């Protein structure tokens, strides 16, 4: 199953977990599945079905904006990381 990595400051909204196993064949599906378990996480990542401006999603080590955005396929044992975008510079 794909694994979603939760950023530390959001773990209180994911039952304290740093990663959550879930199902789904695309990033969108994986996030929807995560949302069934932890709706507070989903609402923070997505706004009206779109990714919020200041959050990035990586499948393994690739930013999904360079792939197929939320439709990027996710395979079994892929790692999906939710990473805050306001860092660096």
């Amino acid at each position, binding site marked *: 199953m794909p694994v979603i*990595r939760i*950023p*530390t*400051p*959001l773990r209180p*909204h994911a039952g304290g977990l740093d990663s959550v196993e879930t199902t789904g064949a695309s990033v969108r599906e994986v996030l929807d599945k995560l949302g069934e378990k932890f709706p507070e996480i989903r609402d*923070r*990542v997505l*706004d009206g079905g779109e990714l*919020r*401006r*200041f*959050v*990035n999603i*990586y499948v393994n*080590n690739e*930013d999904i*904006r*360079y792939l197929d955005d939320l439709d990027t396929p996710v395979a079994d044992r892929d790692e999906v*990381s939710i*990473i*805050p*975008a*306001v*860092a*660096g*510079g």
Partner: protein
Amino acid sequence: MYQHMVRGLKCRLCGKRYPKEPLNFCTEDFGPLEVEYDYEAVAQSMSKDAIRNRPRTIWRYRELLPIDGEPTVGLHVGGTPLIRADRLARALGVSELYIKNDAVNHPTLSFKDRVVAVALSKAVEFGFETVGCASTGNLAGSVAANAAAAGLNAYVLIPDNLEQGKVLGASIYGAKVIAIKGNYDHVNRLCSQIAFRFGWGFVNVNLRPFYAEGSKSMGFEIAEDLGWRAPDHVVAPMAGGSLIGKLHKAFVEFAQLGLIDAPIRTRMFGAQATGCNPISNTVKLNANKVRPVRDPQTIAKSLAIGDPADGFFASKLIRETGGWSEDVDDDEIIDAMLLLGETEGIFTETAGGVTVAVARKLIEQGKIDRDGSTVLCITGNGLKTQEALIDKIAKPVVIPPDLAAFEALVEAAAPDLAAVAV
């Protein structure tokens, strides 16, 4: 004694307030957190006279820098010269031009010493013993040096393709320098994960709201050194896009305190390299979203951030102030580095070449008025990026230690000088 001047942190998107804590994003919507001040309290202790009586460092503006106690790191940072650049002005065809020269900032010769002084002073207040950063080079050196002087452990993470001077300039201070296979955006993502996992103080991750405020000191100095006024135009290099916003914020805060005239009409101009132009591209296309650049390719490595955290706010500010943004290629960057050296005797790194070259382009386009006052922000030192120039400049002429040989040389190069020799 300054504790009450900083209220806490506030999300730039939803306005949610947070206490002073090492956190860079809003846990509701991932929006950037920004320091919130009590400007009434600031106004009570910050006046022109109070500022004039303090040492010429960033800490002369300390009410507007977000630490609670006395600064403990980077006590000598800032106070760099604002130079009236008449020879460069003539070359570019403008009447009133200034260079803000952070190529000679203390201790590591870049504007990053400003942000690091604030971030590490705050790190000490938070009780961090290990600090770190994701860097394109200048920040690495500054974190390493200032952490060493403060007795903090430092981890600096850099892309594995940086200039030797930047790598050496970080390693010399005993920091753990880790090169990541990949570009800056890979480094940055990893640091976002490291900072919270290990509970360290990463200056541009969890300490970022405090860190970024340090850049305002550059704007404060510009306004004070112009005789307490804001310039008509500022040209600033953009990597993550934070500096340009903080320069403008500095003018707005000074105006709010009555130290300079309100309203601020300064037009902000952002400079990027064509090989990594996500922000200038956003401005030119009038886009609402910043499209990241996956594989930045430019000799201006210190600006090679393909996915700039403040790209959205930088492009918005540029539009709102009536400014513009341009980008320049490697040859234009080198030409501009040489021009600055030959007209003003200032050796800047490649990023400074970007700033000067973009200024030249914007002046030629008529985007910058030739009659207004213009400040170019030179943020780094050329000695750190020698690779970019080494094959582009004349090698020394070699002659024997012999008067006749020298006379022959002058005769060939400048016959009129040779004729007047006695």
